């Protein structure tokens, strides 16, 4: 080609080059190591405990990758041109799915939890909060204003309302049970976790465009499926910005919950005032006899990072259950609280044994679960990258964030 002709193609070469340069530059800037004053894990923990950020707003993103194969979500947004073929994300509310087999529900749930979820979080003090879970073309709203709790689901246009009279008082009483000084509390956590966890502070990347320390917790255990837990802590305010759980043998984080933008400061007051829209179905709920601790409605745990990050008084008691604080995703956790006698082991190696009579029927007799499970010595194994569940031949369920070998050892009574 003649030089004059070649010249005409210069813009065509330059344009992608410029864009590539910008993209690479942006990702380098995002990954840039932050030069912060070095701190010990104790000091970073103290920053978290000491943090006075009670008012903030931000966008959060939660990604769950448990090593379960994913299916293409064709039409899951209800956006394909054929109106009939696509049950939207609100399919669980449609009459069809109520008669569907439980396997379908399970699939729905897995699909709903895996992948990336985004939410918008607004918090104003301990008793005002709003979480908007952005689900494609739909939105779930959880609003707390004092003792009044609202849940609004845009896909079904329904609102749930519950008033918990003693709520604010309870919250403040919890505050008083906390250890007196932040320093002492940080010490307590360190002491409790130090027995089975290596802690270190790494120079992490910036999180949500803010300088952050990354506190890394590495289980001192050969059996744990958890490779590492990283907690990003805002250098300026001490607010936890991100929690990442890496699983053994998986490159992508198994759980990643964190802010993509974070703004300290009081959000607009009208965000916490909710009036159900005209035409919405409103369900008024009574406070159950045992006072409800959490909000009504179902909340996809992974999608509500704001709750996990310990800003709400209800969650701010890390000193009490060392080693469990970051385990809120794990099914074993709740059961462990209910039946302390069925727990074997401590710390990261904790294994929960559910006796045959207590195994829920949906699990024991579920055809699809049985298909997903792989036969192993002594039973069947349901494997995800963070949690192993062993359904033993005698009907017990043994689960924990540990390797199969340890589950089998526990199942055999060792």
């Amino acid at each position: 080609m003649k030089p004059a002709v070649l010249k005409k193609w210069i813009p065509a070469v330059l344009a992608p080059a410029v864009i590539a340069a910008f993209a690479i530059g942006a990702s380098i800037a995002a990954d840039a190591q932050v030069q912060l004053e070095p701190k010990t894990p104790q000091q970073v923990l103290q920053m978290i405990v000491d943090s006075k950020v009670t008012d903030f707003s931000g966008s959060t993103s939660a990604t769950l990758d448990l090593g379960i194969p994913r299916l293409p979500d064709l039409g899951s947004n209800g956006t394909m041109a054929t109106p009939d073929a696509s049950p939207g994300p609100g399919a669980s509310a449609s009459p069809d799915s109520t008669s569907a087999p439980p396997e379908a529900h399970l699939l729905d749930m897995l699909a709903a939890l895996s992948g990336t979820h985004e939410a918008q979080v607004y918090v104003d003090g301990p008793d005002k909060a709003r979480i908007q879970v952005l689900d494609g073309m739909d939105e779930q709203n959880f609003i707390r204003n004092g003792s009044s709790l609202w849940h609004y689901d845009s896909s079904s246009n329904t609102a749930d309302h519950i008033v918990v009279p003693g709520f604010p008082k309870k919250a403040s009483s919890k505050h008083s049970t906390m250890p007196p000084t932040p320093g002492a509390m940080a010490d307590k956590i360190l002491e409790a976790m130090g027995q089975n966890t290596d802690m270190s502070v790494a120079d992490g990347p910036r999180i949500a465009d803010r300088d952050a320390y990354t506190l890394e917790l590495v289980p001192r255990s050969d059996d744990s499926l958890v490779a590492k837990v990283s907690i990003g802590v805002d250098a300026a305010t001490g607010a936890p910005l991100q929690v990442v759980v890496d699983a053994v043998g998986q490159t992508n984080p198994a759980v990643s919950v964190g802010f993509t933008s974070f703004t300290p400061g009081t959000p607009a007051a009208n965000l916490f005032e909710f009036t159900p829209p005209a035409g919405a179905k409103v369900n008024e709920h009574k406070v159950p006899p045992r006072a409800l601790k959490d909000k009504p409605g179902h909340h996809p745990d992974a999608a509500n990072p704001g709750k996990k990050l310990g800003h709400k008084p209800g969650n701010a008691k890390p000193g009490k259950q060392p080693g469990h604080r970051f385990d809120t995703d794990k099914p074993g956790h709740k059961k462990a609280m209910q039946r302390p006698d069925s727990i074997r082991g401590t710390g990261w190696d904790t294994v929960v044994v559910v006796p045959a009579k207590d195994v829920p029927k949906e699990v024991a007799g579920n055809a699809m679960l049985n298909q997903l499970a792989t036969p192993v010595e002594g039973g069947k194994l349901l494997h995800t990258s963070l949690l192993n569940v062993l359904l033993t031949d005698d009907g017990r369920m043994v689960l924990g964030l540990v390797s199969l070998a340890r589950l089998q050892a526990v199942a055999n009574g060792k």
Partner: protein
Amino acid sequence: MSNRGLLANEVVLLYRRRRTWAMLLALGAVPVLIAVAVRLTSGPPTGRGPAFLDRVAGNGFFVAITGLLVCIPLFLPLTVAVVAGDTIAGEAGSGTLRYLLTAPVSRPRLLLVKFTVAALFCLSATVMVAACGLGIGSLLFPVGPVTLLSGTTVSAPAALLRVGLIALYVAVSLIGLAAVGLFISTLTDVPVGAMAAIAVIAVAAQILGQLPQLDWLHPWLFTHHWLGFADLLRDPIRWAEFGQNALLQGGYLLVFGALAYGRFASKDVLS
């Protein structure tokens, strides 16, 4: 011929074509069909069909939104493919390109004018869908304050503004495809071939966008934000998606505009 004169000429040419109006009317028929179907039946049960369809019966505004939602994956890209594919290849195919260029019009300027016309069509097409949706919606259904996804209710004028924003969002979303189309149109003298190729690319990009194995590619597909306009129906409005979409489409415009220039400026125009 002055720049403005050429542009005015081309715009007049676009809207004088029977084909343009046939496409615009077909697009306008989509929301009308949706509205009539919902009016004649009792409406779909909650959670079935395209998002927002179950709200149509309650509020005419949602006819426009549902119409845009239904048109984005296929109908709008098809019409844009026809217009963008015709830009250069159409002139070359009918043998008028040579005459256009013998007038003192530089090739980059002709390219710019052709692209502007295609972009104008993107906007007219989305406005057509939105306007027909609003029209038929207000005829068949009550129109009033709109409940946003966040559960907040806004007044009718504010809702009208949101529908306008959504139409703008969709129009911007199509810019990338129009730029790709302009480039493809410079590659051939057969307009039908260019149109088909552009339509195939639009569909292929959406299929790639559905495959989880190609996660890394998704943010770079020009279709990535096509359905992201739901963020304009939240309270407060999330502008992030709008911005990212505009940036992405701008990038496509830059790259494929430059490619089209490279090809068109170095091409031997024989017909």
